């Protein structure tokens, strides 16, 4: 659907809509706090009514009528197919049942490794962050992980201060060598400037599409490492009027997040 006059939207709304489009119907997706929750709720109302949301503390297959404020909150098992516990969920991921995992972090590197533990030295940190939580497990066990990030040079860095969650570690074959399940790894990065993927051979981060109004140059300038720029770079369509309406009037109707 093409809008003649483009509706205005906030950066967070763009992230939610972009992430939402990556959620397939009839697939399983591990959902963390924040943007992924909004994206999952939007996806269920738009194109993926049978998206099976999986939450860390046991909610599986919730219908996200009310936005969860916590990954263990009642909304994470609202009209769900099961309310179990963290072991069941993590074990389900470990034996290969969860397709997508949504992740965030303070820093991401060219191989999609994520830091959510410390900024600075581990023993004398400049900033002590909240830690792995389930992040490391999602990055280890889900088939395809999608990181949602704000895009700037402090966040997209060549070298992480701490590798909390595994991406492709230090390159091709490294996950398998470490003992991580074969065939798993980072799939996409959704940022306010771009949608990125990974080069099939080098496993380094690669630009796929720019966000509306953003040039390739702006993406490059805001990335702290060398990006793979393919010959053809798509341009990501902006949030549609319908997406924005559902997001504002249904998904986050109480303006809890946006």
């Amino acid at each position: 659907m093409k809008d003649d006059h483009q509706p205005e939207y906030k950066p967070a709304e763009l992230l939610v809509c972009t992430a939402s489009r990556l959620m397939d119907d009839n697939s399983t997706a591990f959902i963390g706090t924040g943007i992924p929750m909004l994206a999952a709720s939007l996806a269920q109302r738009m194109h993926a009514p049978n998206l099976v949301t999986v939450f860390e503390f046991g909610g599986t297959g919730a219908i996200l009528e009310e936005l969860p404020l916590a990954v263990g909150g009642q909304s994470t098992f609202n009209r769900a197919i099961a309310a179990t516990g963290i072991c069941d969920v993590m074990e389900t991921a470990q034996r290969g049942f969860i397709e997508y995992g949504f992740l965030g972090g303070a820093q991401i590197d060219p191989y999609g490794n994520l830091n959510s533990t410390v900024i600075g030295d581990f023993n004398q940190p400049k900033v002590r962050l909240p830690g792995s939580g389930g992040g490391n497990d999602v990055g280890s066990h889900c088939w395809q992980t999608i990181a949602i990030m704000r895009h700037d040079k402090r966040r997209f860095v060549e070298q992480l201060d701490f590798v909390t969650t595994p991406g492709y570690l230090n390159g091709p074959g490294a996950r398998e060598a470490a003992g991580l399940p074969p065939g798993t790894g980072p799939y996409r990065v959704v940022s306010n400037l771009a949608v990125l993927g990974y080069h099939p051979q080098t496993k380094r981060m690669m630009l796929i599409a720019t966000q509306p109004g953003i040039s390739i140059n702006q993406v490059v300038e805001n990335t702290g490492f060398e990006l793979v720029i393919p010959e053809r770079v798509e341009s990501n369509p902006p949030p549609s009027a319908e997406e924005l309406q559902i997001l504002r009037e249904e998904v986050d109707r109480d303006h809890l997040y946006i």
Partner: protein
Amino acid sequence: MEIIQTGKGKLIQPPDINAFREWNRRKSKVLTDKRMSEAEAVTRFIKDGDYIGTELYGSVRAPMSLVSEIVRQGIKDLRVAGQGVLELDLLLAASLIKELDFTYIGLELYGVSNCLRREVESGRIKTIVEWSNAALTWRFKATSIGVPFIPTRSMLGTDTFNYSAALVVEDPFTGDPVCLVPALILDVGLIHVHRADQYGNAQIDGISGFSAELARSSKRLLISAEEIVDSEVIRQAPDRTIIPYYLVDAVVEAPFGSHPGEMCYQYRRDEPRIREWVEAAKDPQTTRAYLDQYIYGVKNHQEYLSLVGAERLENLKFGAAT
């Protein structure tokens, strides 16, 4: 079995599975009335330096009345299984934690914990050992099934592993690398539940988090319950019993025991109060003022509930006219 890699973190609580079996053998199987106040439970069963764990977490079915009592009594030098939000924030705010097996302490949608930052960045907390959430929970699972460790495919290849006390070994069956996490036996576990009888048989509605595993990994287990029910209520629905009485040392009746967190099917989060904490926790002085008002300034959970106010609590219940 060849060790490929050793995490450099300290094993804060080395597990002794045989001693734990002996402990469990000696634990009374007599049906006795274990009801008591938070004050009595904490005084009798937790001491300085103990290794403790809480379940579920911070804003959801958290044992807030028990944790508040720990703060009130100033039980210090605690070693803690670090998976939490508001409840562990209170212990950090009062500088009661010495060592942490760490997976997540933060304020979820409100971001980083400033109490955690102050305690860690100042160096007051000396020991932090990293784990993933599944790894920490599977450590409880190892204890639950009575084995010294459990193999997992979490943490491999990361600094989370490097700063843990786990091992990567060669799987003796396939030769592939696999991560071993050691059993974690708690001195004291604290769990808030929907209902329990006077003996400690406890039932939880909704998701069960890691209550089954934590309960079975605790040498001493303190249960707080929204409601104390007749044993016959438990026996009518035994399939709902997650924690049998013989695991339990104290049963505390604590209506709104998870406040300002939620309790599924019963009451919602008290969002303004959670935000009040988020704001207060930004600065040491306002943090202290919050503790003064809501913990040190009240004698017990009943006084805390009076301070919050019956009407406010009533409005948090599902079905309340808001």
